[in-house]
């Protein structure tokens, strides 16, 4: 079974703190994604990576950065957390399709982040 794990299920941080969310997948997938999920807004893509050290901005990258030093690990960084970043954060991974198809994305369980 594909497994995508996220470092924390619940996290509480203070405004201004630097926050790291970690995601690890064990299926040798090239693609990794970070989304945030908010009621009524669905899932919105924050950042996407299709290879080690490669990244691409999604729809809402402001206030976030990412790091991918190893193929299996994709980190989301909140440089200075703010209350409007309180949300559910979901990580996903998939195979690189090269345009011929679009592979299924496999999701982690999510991290519910609260910024006070």
């Amino acid at each position, binding site marked *: 079974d594909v497994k995508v794990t996220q470092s924390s299920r619940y996290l509480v941080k203070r405004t201004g703190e630097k926050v790291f969310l970690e995601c690890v997948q064990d299926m040798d997938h090239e693609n990794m994604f970070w989304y945030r999920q908010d009621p009524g807004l669905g899932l919105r893509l924050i950042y996407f990576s299709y290879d080690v050290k490669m990244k691409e901005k999604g729809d809402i990258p402001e206030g976030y950065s990412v790091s991918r030093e190893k193929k299996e690990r994709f980190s989301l960084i909140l440089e200075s957390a703010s209350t409007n970043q309180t949300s559910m954060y979901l990580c996903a991974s998939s195979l690189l399709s090269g345009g011929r198809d679009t592979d299924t994305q496999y*999701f982690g369980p999510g991290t519910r982040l609260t910024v006070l």
Partner: protein
Amino acid sequence: AQSVAQPEDQVNVAEGNPLTVKCTYSVSGNPYLFWYVQYPNRGLQFLLKYITGDNLVKGSYGFEAEFNKSQTSFHLKKPSALVSDSALYFCAVRDKYGTDKLIFGTGTRLQVFP
């Protein structure tokens, strides 16, 4: 730009009745469409996808979806709902050719009553 719309925030169905969760899409080119489900306190799970071929796609847990090009719809269906089907359902479309990014709808909460 590619997009999907889920016009219903919530769908209520009695157990044993057929269910439909609606999704419409807007794309340039051929649509690659997906349905995912999220059970409480869980990540999203893949249900099914349409790439090409038969307009009726069968997926996990007895779900199926019908691709309708003329109506630009991809509705999720199940002949007989179970209480355990109660969850949040997301429709998604591939962003554009050559990318693996998906654009998700806002989600529809399905409530199946005993």
